[in-house]
């Protein structure tokens, strides 16, 4: 048979590895900064773009899409070419993919700290960047499928199925969750509202974990673990079952993020049921990965690559056992909104994704540079300090989560809350936040050791060049099933058909959950007293989104005695019908805010936003001093925003839109009047007027500044329901 010679493109792999390492350091550094902000809440006092609320999405996006994303692309480009015995379909597309993706990351790194955020977790980026992601993702897909079409290996190895599922599912999720109506170049509103937005968001959010952090890395596992151990996967049959059952079941599990929320119960229970089922394929995959090492455990003792893989797969096993447990309603009642969830995701991120990526980098770089790893000792050191870092990170967070949840739910014999002040439950877990920061420091140290080790390896090795390979051309056979060929061997040599079938498998779950919630009106009973936000409140809500308040404060009261006692009546689906996007949140570093309106006076909020510690000693909320700056709030888009809301179905009348700015000013002036009830405010207000005059600056009255809008929004929260109750009484 005639052999064909060709070159594997190693340069693209090299680029993606460099990007992985680079953004790994950045993403982890931002994470560590955030960990220290729990300890020193005002360490970046007054610098808006370095505030916690804006950096948190930067951390999650950097780690998920920049670090893990680039690691997947590196491994995918390396393994795919070799599994298909072909160079990538187009070098041009490979490079467009690489540079496009890095540009998107840079755009994220600039826009998120500036406060351009849609607030939906892991989908915070604004609409122009969303479009860029879609285009680059399609470029990657064309390149992948093109390579499959010109391949020299008949069968598509299971790793490639995982890559394909990643491609199609992320595309579907990304597009549907980011359907938004633009108001300006960097502001848009989700087309869904309230409960529906929540369901679509967590269908996306959960499956971002599934199809961006799990399936691509399972593909990498099925390639790199056999390579590093030099033996085939434990059971190829199991890997087929693993693939189909995982992608089929995963897509249904999203609603477990919304247990006890205003989401209809049937959707919650469906999410629970599928989350429990998910244990089977996940553990099947984990066992398949670990048992691949049967007979070579002696190698694991000496080879750091295998050590990293073993801890990675074990971490996968732990996280995927914990996930189904967390989705049980009784466990979720404790864990949700606490640091338990933070521990859970970091077992996944630090162990499964991080260690898988590290093992792959330590294996790939010396091979491509045709040399040995500079220092095995340093790699082993990285392994141990990283493992210790994971332990020191996660265990204190489990303790913190459990402890805080228990304190939230503790009652006195007379029926009052034992820890009625939320802050008491926070100060109690401060030691755990310290340990977490130490654990994170260790993990980052390990990452820096990797940087040094890899740089030294590259310096000693030869320049990474494309690699010559040869293989016989694939003989063209009938595209239909040939005589005697069964269905599956046929399917496994047909990339397009395989992709379509995988798409069908993932769509079933999405359709069954989402279509009824969007179509069936009776799922969202309307409440007549719930009215759209006033123009000032709408602007305040956008500030709440800009500052990332949702990262620490939920707006969803669960139907528990402890929560109703602490926060007020439980959430009802009808309360959120005008919320584009929903802001239920997923973590309570601070208390729930759904019913905070009217709880405190305007001055309380005013002083609290300026310096939270002056109101609540020991609070770990940072101040938001830039909202008080002597400059007017941008209201140039207010009417356009209202108009956009009308398009989305919010019943503002034409007259309301027309008088939007007047109404806004009236309400703002009212708040300023309220603030003047406090003599301290009047005093400092007069002083600042004089100061501005002394500096020759134009003085902007308080009612024109941003803080007033945010106070207006705070005071509105949850009051619609209160109005109804008082009307009844």
């Amino acid at each position, binding site marked *: 048979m005639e052999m064909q010679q060709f070159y594997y493109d190693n340069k693209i792999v090299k680029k993606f590895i460099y990007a992985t390492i680079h953004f790994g350091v950045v993403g982890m550094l931002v994470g560590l900064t955030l960990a220290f902000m729990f300890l020193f809440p005002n360490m970046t006092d007054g610098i808006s773009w370095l505030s916690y609320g804006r950096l948190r999405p930067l951390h999650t996006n950097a780690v998920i899409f920049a670090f893990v994303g680039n690691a997947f692309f590196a491994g995918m480009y390396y393994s795919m070419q070799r*599994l298909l015995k072909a160079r990538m379909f187009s070098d041009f597309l490979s490079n467009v993919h690489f540079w496009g993706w890095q540009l998107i990351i840079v755009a994220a790194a600039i826009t998120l700290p500036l406060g351009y955020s849609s607030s939906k977790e892991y989908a915070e980026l604004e609409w122009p960047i969303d479009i860029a992601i879609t285009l680059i993702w399609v470029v990657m897909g064309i390149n992948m499928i093109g390579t499959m079409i010109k391949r020299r290996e008949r069968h598509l190895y299971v790793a490639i199925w995982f890559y394909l599922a990643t491609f199609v599912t992320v595309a579907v999720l990304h597009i549907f969750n980011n359907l938004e109506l633009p108001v300006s170049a960097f502001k848009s509103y989700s087309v869904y509202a309230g409960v529906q937005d929540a369901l679509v968001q967590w269908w996306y959010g959960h499956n971002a974990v599934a199809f961006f952090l799990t399936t691509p890395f399972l593909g990498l596992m099925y390639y790199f673990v056999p390579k590093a151990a030099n*033996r085939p996967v434990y059971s190829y049959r199991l890997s087929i079952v693993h693939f189909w059952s995982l992608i089929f079941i995963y897509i249904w599990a999203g609603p477990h993020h919304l247990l006890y929320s205003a989401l209809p119960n049937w959707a919650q229970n469906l999410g629970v049921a599928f989350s429990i089922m998910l244990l089977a394929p996940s553990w099947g995959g984990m066992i398949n990965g670990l048992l691949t090492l049967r007979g070579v455990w002696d190698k694991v003792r000496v080879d750091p690559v295998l050590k990293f893989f073993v801890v990675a797969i074990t971490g996968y096993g732990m996280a995927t056992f914990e996930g189904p447990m967390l989705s049980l309603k009784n466990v979720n009642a404790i864990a949700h909104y606490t640091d338990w969830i933070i521990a859970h995701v970091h077992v996944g991120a630090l162990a499964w994704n991080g260690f898988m990526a590290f093992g792959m980098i330590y294996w790939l770089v010396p091979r491509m540079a045709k040399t040995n790893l500079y220092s095995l000792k340093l790699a082993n050191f990285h392994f141990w300090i990283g493992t210790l870092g994971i332990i020191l990170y996660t265990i204190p967070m489990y303790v913190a989560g459990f402890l805080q949840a228990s304190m939230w739910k503790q009652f006195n014999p007379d029926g009052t809350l034992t820890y009625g002040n939320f802050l008491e439950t926070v100060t109690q877990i401060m030691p755990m936040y310290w340990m977490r920061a130490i654990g994170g420091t260790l993990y980052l140290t390990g990452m820096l050791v990797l940087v040094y080790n890899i740089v030294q390896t590259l310096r000693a090795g030869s320049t990474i060049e494309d690699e010559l390979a040869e293989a016989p051309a694939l003989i063209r056979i009938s595209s239909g099933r040939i005589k005697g060929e069964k269905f599956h*061997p046929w399917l496994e040599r047909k990339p397009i058909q395989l992709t379509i079938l995988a798409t069908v498998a993932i769509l079933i779950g999405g359709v069954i959950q989402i279509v009824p919630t969007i179509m069936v009106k009776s799922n969202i009973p309307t409440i007549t007293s719930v009215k759209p936000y006033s123009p000032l409140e709408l602007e305040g809500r956008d500030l709440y989104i800009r500052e990332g308040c949702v990262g620490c404060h939920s707006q969803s009261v669960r139907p528990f005695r402890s929560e109703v006692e602490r926060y007020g009546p439980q959430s009802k689906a009808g309360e959120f019908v005008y919320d584009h996007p929903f802001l239920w949140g997923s973590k309570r570093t601070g208390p729930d805010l759904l019913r905070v309106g009217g709880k405190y006076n305007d001055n309380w909020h005013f002083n609290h936003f300026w310096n939270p510690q002056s109101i609540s000693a020991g609070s770990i909320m940072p101040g938001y001093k830039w909202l008080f700056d002597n400059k007017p709030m941008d209201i140039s888009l207010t009417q356009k925003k209202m108009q956009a809301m009308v398009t989305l179905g919010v019943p503002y009348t034409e007259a309301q839109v027309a008088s939007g700015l007047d109404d806004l000013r009236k309400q703002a002036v009212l708040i300023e009047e309220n603030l003047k009830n406090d003599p301290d405010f009047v005093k400092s207000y007069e002083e600042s007027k004089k100061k501005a005059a002394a500096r020759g600056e134009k003085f902007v009255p308080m009612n024109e500044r941003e803080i007033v809008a945010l106070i207006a929004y705070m005071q509105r929260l949850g009051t619609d329901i209160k109005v109804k109750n008082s009307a009844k009484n």
Partner: protein
Amino acid sequence: MFEQIKHNMETIDGVSIYPILSLLIFFFFFVGLGIWVFSYKKETIDELSEIPLKDN
């Protein structure tokens, strides 16, 4: 607990078909998968699982 599911879906016509349909989808999905996997010949499976090891 399943009371909650029933009542929320009552407004859809012919909703009782859904659980049956779901069960059937699941049943046939996994039975099909089982047949798929176990109808492989041992040699084919071995050959497939060797793909990553014979690539360079």
